[in-house]
């Protein structure tokens, strides 16, 4: 049934009445519609990206590491980017994925911590609250079909409790004593689990550093979007410390014998 009275008693389509004896343009059209004609298109891919972030629990708190590279596709575009960011005095976040989205996340976290600070009510946001907030933001954005293209690790220590959890562009969350995003999820996780699980409360800072350094080295050898320059963040009851850039020590002598690497003899 056509509910528009102006259409009644008239041809369904102007094609039936080539001489157009009625005002075509004042009437609603009943032809097929393209439901997506005015659909919104959004950028749905990361542009400048960071690769893995690693984090483990150890005796005194949380240790997190990420390299200093922001890639533009396969090009190593920015080599002095910090992908670790302290939020307040108890929390560190590390980001893989789109770096502009990460910068946006830094500003919204800065906004909420400032708002919380101005209340002066003796409360402050800890790692658990920051992670919960981020998971809500990430899920809300994926539901709008406009995700923040990141995988984030949130770690920290507050009131004597260690906290370490993951959240990504879908709003997926989980928690473990060793976490890694991106390529690290494939390469570093088995190494980290082997070294850390069951020893979260006994590992010293030096041991933890060595575990992290070793995983960063493996990642630099095998992940083509990684860099041999990285930072380590340490969160303890005393607060957050982000290190200067460290260098991954590598040895390439093995490559001599591999065809395609060393000097070719044939």
């Amino acid at each position: 049934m056509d509910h528009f009275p102006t259409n009644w008693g008239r041809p369904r389509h102007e094609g039936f009445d080539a001489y157009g004896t009625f005002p075509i343009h004042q009437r609603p059209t009943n032809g097929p519609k393209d439901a997506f004609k005015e659909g919104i298109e959004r950028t749905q891919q990361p542009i400048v990206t960071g690769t893995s972030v690693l984090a483990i629990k150890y005796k005194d708190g949380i240790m997190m590491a990420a390299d200093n590279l922001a890639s533009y596709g396969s090009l190593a575009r920015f080599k002095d980017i910090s992908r670790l960011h302290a939020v307040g005095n108890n929390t560190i976040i590390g980001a893989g994925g789109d770096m502009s989205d990460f910068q946006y996340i830094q500003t919204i976290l800065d906004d909420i911590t400032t708002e919380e600070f101005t209340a002066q009510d003796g409360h402050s946001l800890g790692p658990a609250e920051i992670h919960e907030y981020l998971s809500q933001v990430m899920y809300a954005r994926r539901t709008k079909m406009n995700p923040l293209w990141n995988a984030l690790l949130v770690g920290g220590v507050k009131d004597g409790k260690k906290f370490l959890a993951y959240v990504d562009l879908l709003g997926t969350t989980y928690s473990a004593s060793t976490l890694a995003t991106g390529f690290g999820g494939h390469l570093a996780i088995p190494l980290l689990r082997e070294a850390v699980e069951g020893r979260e409360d006994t590992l010293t800072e030096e041991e933890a550093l060595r575990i992290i350094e070793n995983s960063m080295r493996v990642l630099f050898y095998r992940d083509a979007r990684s860099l041999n320059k990285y930072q380590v963040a340490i969160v303890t009851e005393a607060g957050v410390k982000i290190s200067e850039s460290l260098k991954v020590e590598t040895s390439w002598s093995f490559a001599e014998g591999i065809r395609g690497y060393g000097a070719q003899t044939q």
Partner: protein
Amino acid sequence: MTSIGTGYDLSASTYSPDGRIFQVEYAGKAVENSGTAIGLKVKDGVVLAVEKLVHSKLLVPDANRRIQTVDRHIGLATAGLLADGRNISNRARDEASSYRDIYRSPAPLKAIIDRLGLYVQAYTLYSSVRPFGISTILGGVDENGPSLYVVEPSGVFFGYNGAAIGKGRQLAKTELEKLKLNELSMREAVMEAARIIYLVHDDAKEKDFELEISWIGPESNYTHVHVPKDLFNEAEAQAKAALETFE
């Protein structure tokens, strides 16, 4: 007041024949009846202090703060109607956060006080609202160093080295003038602020009061916070001792 009964004080949108706006002047009276608030701009930072009159013994200690934090590096103290003080601090917070959103950097005090002045002045323009019954001391440290401002109910604001508003402002101002403000350290400023508040408090007329002191400077990592408990206790003890030798 001579204006009573003349009909020129019925609205803030009416001048008296000699060019005054009585409603704004009455708002000033609300400020004069309030406990004293002072601000000191010293070499490295700013100290705010308030004589908070406690109108009932049943109140929880530290309730109804009159010093509020606007942004990490900005604080304000008000004298006058408590509820108006809350409204102005909320507005100041909104302005500070909107500045952050737009320029991605902490707001300079000048920007906040400009907006706050406009906001307060707008409440002198319409018959549907009343002027603010408060004066506000805004203090903070930004990229240009420490600064201190006072906004009055008319919306006018000035920068100061030392500011006093409320009941005991006259005595407080003369005390502030005796100080070499730009030579004081932050801790010395806290001591002086406590002393002045205790000095201007009128024991005979007023009931109990609570001292409130906040600071922004190197000791507080350039954030606006109430001074640490031990320093506060020391300042309060010294202020009480100074009062006894004064008398």
